[in-house]
């Protein structure tokens, strides 16, 4: 025995469940955008359309949980009133709106079928800013030396791979009519989930200190859950499953795996006191803060889906008709 803390204090988590929701949604959004671009190159614009719509819905939803996790959300403009290049989060504050804007405008260009030249530039911007978002989200956590569970080579790799799997999974849930495109997405999901499983194993099992640290605040059942249900199952379903239903199951499992991994690592890392004088109580799944973040994010995704559907069904056709629409065009 080294010591017993006779007097210590309770502390709150600095990053609440909203942060878990943000990291899930933005990671899936970027992965869906990358999938859309890959499908466009390999299979054409029509095959890429569902992935681009999913990227738009998720990109539109991501800022809400991020703002909600700020304890002073009304001050978000302070990010843009000065330069803080030493802060990864400051870079993220610029990359996120760039990604959201280029994704939404690329979706608009695709839906209307106009602005072909600008559409190319927008898609390039979407891919570039998306890769930047993936880099900043992984780097933002990995550089925090005071959090050993984040500050290592394994965590950002698994974070990124689960993001890619969840993005491919989200597109499969939405449905991909193009069969060859769907097969490519299943391969991408299987590859990223399988690589994530290997990386998770190497990260935790190759380093006894890391395994001890992880198991200190994350029960084996949680890590086993992430590995089995969140990574292995979707990889196997994507590889060996047949039909749209198994593809959707694989997608749901991949999204669930990414959520479980973020939940485990964000709560596990923050629950570890760095000086052993504070007690951090992780939020339970039924806590109001957790339910608020889940329902809030799900509600925002639903609202974004409605907005993108309105764009597709009403706004885009009107814009597509352009100057030919209206009484004068009818007379001609």
């Amino acid at each position, binding site marked *: 025995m080294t010591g017993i803390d006779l007097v210590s204090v309770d502390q709150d988590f600095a990053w609440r469940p909203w942060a878990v929701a943000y990291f899930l949604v933005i990671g899936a959004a970027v992965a869906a955008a990358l999938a859309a671009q890959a499908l466009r190159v390999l299979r054409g614009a029509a095959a890429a359309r569902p992935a681009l719509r999913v990227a738009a819905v998720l990109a539109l939803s991501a800022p809400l949980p991020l703002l909600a996790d700020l304890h*002073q959300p009304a001050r978000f403009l302070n990010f843009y009133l000065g330069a803080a290049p030493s802060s990864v989060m*400051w870079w993220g504050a610029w990359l996120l709106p760039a990604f959201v804007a280029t994704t939404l405008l690329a979706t608009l260009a695709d839906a209307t079928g106009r602005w072909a030249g600008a559409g190319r530039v927008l898609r390039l911007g979407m891919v570039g800013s998306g890769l930047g978002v993936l880099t900043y989200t992984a780097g933002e956590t990995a550089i925090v030396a005071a959090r050993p569970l984040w500050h290592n080579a394994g965590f950002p790799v698994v974070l990124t791979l689960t993001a890619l799997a969840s993005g491919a999974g989200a597109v499969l849930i939405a449905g991909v009519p193009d069969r060859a495109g769907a097969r490519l997405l299943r391969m991408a999901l299987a590859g990223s989930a399988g690589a994530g499983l290997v990386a998770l194993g190497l990260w935790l099992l190759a380093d006894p200190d890391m395994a001890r640290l992880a198991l200190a605040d994350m029960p084996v059942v949680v890590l086993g859950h992430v590995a089995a249900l969140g990574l292995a199952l979707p990889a196997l379903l994507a590889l060996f499953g047949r039909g749209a239903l198994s593809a959707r199951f694989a997608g749901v499992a991949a999204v669930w795996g990414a959520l479980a991994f973020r939940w485990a690592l964000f709560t596990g890392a923050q629950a570890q006191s760095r000086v052993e004088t504070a007690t951090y109580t992780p939020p339970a799944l039924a806590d109001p803060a957790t339910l608020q973040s889940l329902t809030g994010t799900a509600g925002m995704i639903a609202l974004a889906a409605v907005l993108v559907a309105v764009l597709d069904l009403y706004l885009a056709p009107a814009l597509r008709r352009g100057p030919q629409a209206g009484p004068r065009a009818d007379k001609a």
Partner: protein
Amino acid sequence: MTTRRDFLTGAVAQNGGTEAAQAPSPSLRLPADGHTPRWAMVMDLRKCIGCQACTVACAMENNVYEGSYRTHVPVYEIETEFGPVPAMLPRMCNHCENPPCIPVCPVNATFQTEDGIVLVDQDVCVGCGYCVQACPYEARHLDHDSGTADKCTFCVQRLDAGLLPACVETCVGGARVFGDIRDPASAVSRLLAEHDTRNLKPEAGTRPQVYYIGLDDRLVSEVEIEAGARALRQAAGPAPDTTHHEEA
């Protein structure tokens, strides 16, 4: 316009241009010989009895939200050749020479003054909690009232008024000694010269400016700990609501 940062860093007194500003300042931060101090604190653990008077004085002076602490004194029980003994370890912001909380701040709300005090501009802070994650000493928390990062300021408002930090002034055993390490005649400089002092977590590379006399090896870095008060508290369930309810 006088910003909060100007006020906190004492620039008001230096740049105000008013008659009041030109009068001799009582501030400890403006030494008569004109040199820039570097503030530090020495904790003489031989004198600390864990009475928490510093914890209370800090909370009262700085209006710290109930249940949060800018400083407190964890008490450990450690094994010695004479049996288990209590060990007090006052903790607070270390006002590091290389503070990891500053570069991560995305809005430049947290900064270090010329005399080494790490402060938070609470008018700018967005409450992202990144600095809370980055501090290896858990010296920061998010204030429930303001929604911004909060931490020890070495009672900068008291220094500007010519007073010592509240925790130092109230320490019944004289265990907390505060002063300017650039002044060889100061009490902290003499203690540092006369004693073998240690910092917390030297491996973090932060160069803390809170020094300890009599710090047990086992408390310097990661403390291997068994469940004590923590287990009792967790068994007892959640803490009661500490928010104040005003009578209607």
